[in-house]
């Protein structure tokens, strides 16, 4: 095979990142302040590595997404011997590639952002080493065809993510967050390893495809236990309830460029693990109880986290809770086990990476310029940082599902999918999911109104008079994501046709996944339908809105809409001051803390209960993990 044969591209895309990490380490040097030259090189290597990685993956779209090929790649040319996979394999189907593309995009954008954002930090070399390791780990996880390698990659990415969370050790709570994440993350990794070993003990293979060929129909108590362990293990990586406090801590404390990865990339790897586990390895999604489990956990995550977010007063911590809330949407949609549901869930996963990345970067921009993310202290930044404000608003509209941005396109598919499922099965529970999803969406909007009011609008505190717009490099990174948010919202048909539907179809073609690795498969691919009941044509709508807006604006401008009388600069004209009912003009910003009092007052018992529950003590979180494990073991033993 030639070096440029696309079958090699998956391994290239992983190795280029690990090699980048090695190269940065090889350049060495700790003290950056004295050695400005190598800083540039160090920032350039991850940029190049992530760009190359992304390019390799994009080159795979044609054969895998459009051609429907499943790339099976044996490393070191050791394949199958006596019917058993003895080599280590990569296996790339449309699902893997879909997740890999999201991850590589987030990595690249975050690398662009890091150049300026991390400029003033010490030990920048170590940051980039860990950055590349993290990227390589996640890509390795989603492209791997070997379950033990999945575990190794999980460990690499957990390790790198913990270290990066604590990277700015002086940040309030960074060490604490890293430690909590490490403890519970480590429990999760251990559970994954135990599950892997129990599967190995039963089937004497670690190859995903071979396991998928062997497990269905031969399940015993040990494999069921392994399922529960793996499920909880991957849940800790996706941070779904009850692991959401860790996400909040870690996202909040990490540098913004890393929060993007934790939220856009690590959570995806958990979701990917759960999909592989339930749809491929055990093929249990035909069971109503299994669908119930995923949809239930998804809906609870979606609702609990959005209410937790409403109670937050730190910009990044609020975003972190929203992140898990959106992951709840993804999980609930994927758990429906219908073609439309999976397609919608994956679409939302993609959008989540884009808009959440954008929002975290905007939060980082605010932190970079003002030094705080406390919603109570900020205000009025839109006059000082107009571009960041616009970019933030695009992200906020996207996540709140305001048409025509991408969040709406995917949420709208999720509503249809859940309602359709409810009608098809006659189960009123799925209807409840539709309602919860719709309410969560408006609560999301509410908390972003809170952020816009308390950070970007309102009055500017005196100490931020000299705040400037962030450097171009950071705006560029945000701009890329903002453009992607708009595009993926405007052409939902193209996104579903070329990205999410091939990936969703791959989920139903377990047989192809198994047979392309060289194992016999019994499962025929079912016919899938992506038919939707609703209609939404964003481009036409936008066109009409633009015409309407143009008409209004022309009339308004012709009618001297913004006529402002000439002001003399000498005298102070009180009519341009804010209205205080005759009192003197003073600084009075309505902050984020209690903005939605009317709502929270009715739910005060719930909110104070939730506040007490998230105690911040690592033992409690560990206990939640153990309880979740116990529950899932019992549940799995009963239903499987």
């Amino acid at each position, binding site marked *: 095979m030639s070096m440029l044969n696309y079958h090699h591209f998956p391994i290239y895309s992983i190795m280029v990142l690990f090699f980048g990490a090695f190269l940065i380490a090889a350049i060495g040097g700790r003290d950056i302040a004295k050695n400005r030259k190598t800083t540039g090189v160090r920032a350039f290597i991850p940029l190049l590595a992530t760009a190359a990685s992304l390019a390799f993956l994009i080159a795979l779209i044609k054969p895998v997404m459009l051609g429907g090929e499943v790339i099976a790649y044996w490393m070191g040319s050791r394949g199958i011997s006596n019917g058993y996979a003895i080599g280590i394999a990569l296996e790339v189907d449309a699902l893997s590639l879909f997740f890999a593309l999201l991850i590589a995009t987030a990595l690249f954008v975050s690398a662009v952002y890091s150049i300026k954002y991390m400029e003033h930090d010490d030990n920048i070399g170590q940051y980039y080493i860990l950055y590349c390791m993290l990227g390589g780990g996640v890509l390795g996880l989603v492209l791997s065809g070997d379950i*033990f390698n999945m575990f*190794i990659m999980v*460990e690499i990415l957990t*390790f790198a993510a*913990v*270290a990066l969370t*604590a990277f700015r*050790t002086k940040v*309030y*709570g960074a*060490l*604490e*967050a*890293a*430690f*909590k994440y*490490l*403890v519970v993350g*480590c*429990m999760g*990794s*251990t559970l994954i*390893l*135990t599950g892997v*070993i129990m599967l*190995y*003990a039963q089937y*004497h293979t*670690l190859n995903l495809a071979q396991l998928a060929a062997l497990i269905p129909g031969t399940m015993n108590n040990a494999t069921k236990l392994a399922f529960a362990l793996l499920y909880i293990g991957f849940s800790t990586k996706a941070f779904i309830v009850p692991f959401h*406090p860790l996400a*909040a*801590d870690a996202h*909040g*404390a990490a540098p913004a460029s890393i929060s993007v990865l934790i939220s856009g990339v690590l959570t995806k790897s958990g979701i990917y693990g759960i999909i592989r586990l339930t749809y491929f390895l055990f093929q249990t999604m035909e069971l109503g109880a299994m669908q119930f489990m995923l949809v239930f956990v998804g809906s609870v995550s979606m609702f609990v986290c959005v209410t937790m977010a409403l*109670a937050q007063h730190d910009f990044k*911590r609020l975003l972190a809770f929203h992140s898990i809330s959106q992951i709840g949407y993804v999980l609930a949609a994927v758990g429906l086990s219908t073609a439309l549901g999976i397609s919608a869930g994956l679409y939302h996963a993609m959008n989540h990476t884009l808009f959440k990345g954008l929002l975290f970067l905007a939060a980082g921009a605010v932190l970079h310029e003002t030094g705080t993310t406390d919603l109570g202290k900020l205000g009025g930044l839109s006059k000082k940082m107009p571009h960041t404000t616009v970019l933030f608003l695009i992200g906020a509209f996207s996540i709140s599902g305001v048409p025509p941005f991408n969040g709406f396109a995917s949420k709208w598919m999720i509503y249809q999918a859940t309602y359709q499922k409810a009608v098809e099965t006659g189960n009123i529970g799925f209807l409840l999911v539709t309602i919860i999803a719709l309410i969560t969406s408006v609560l999301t909007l509410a908390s972003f109104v809170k952020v816009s009011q308390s950070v970007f609008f309102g009055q500017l505190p005196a100490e931020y008079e000299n705040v400037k717009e962030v450097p171009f490099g950071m705006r560029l990174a945000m701009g890329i994501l903002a453009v992607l948010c708009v595009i993926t919202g405007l052409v939902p048909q193209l996104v579903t046709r070329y990205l999410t539907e091939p990936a969703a179809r791959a989920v139903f073609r377990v047989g192809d996944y198994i047979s392309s690795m060289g194992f016999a498969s019994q499962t025929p691919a079912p016919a899938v339908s992506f038919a939707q009941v609703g209609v939404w044509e964003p481009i036409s709508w936008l066109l009409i809105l633009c015409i309407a807006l143009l008409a209004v604006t022309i009339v308004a401008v012709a009618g001297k809409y913004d006529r402002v009388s000439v002001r003399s600069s000498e005298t102070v004209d009180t009519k341009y001051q804010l209205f205080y009912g005759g009192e003197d003009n003073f600084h009075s910003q309505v902050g984020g803390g209690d903005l939605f009092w009317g709502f929270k007052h009715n739910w005060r018992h719930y909110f104070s209960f*939730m*506040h007490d529950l*998230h*105690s*911040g*003590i*690592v*033992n409690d979180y*560990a*206990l939640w993990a*153990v309880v979740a494990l116990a529950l899932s073991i019992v549940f799995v033993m009963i239903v499987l």
Partner: protein
Amino acid sequence: MITFNYICSFFLIVLGFYTIVTKYNLVKTVIGMSVMDYGVNLLIISVGYHPGGTAPIFTQGELTAASSFVDPIPQALTLTSIVIGACVTAMSMALVIKLEESYGTLDTREIRRLRG
């Protein structure tokens, strides 16, 4: 005999969980994580056990149909797992030291600035 290994390994894993959940000292938490790891390592090694098996090391021509040896793959896996466990312990101890420096305590009940 091997059943005892299995019981022991799960006992160790559960003991690790128990330690993490109930002990309020950061160092004890780290010990709990290590105990959990040892349990898993024991499990892996036991899975590869073969009654009467020898070490899976053979030179060319030595390997016959009659040779009985333990499964080599779990041994390789254990090595990996031990290395990872050591790294995790090192990292968590580093974090513990840093935490002690900035919070002045090792009690998890007092290290809870991030909550709610």
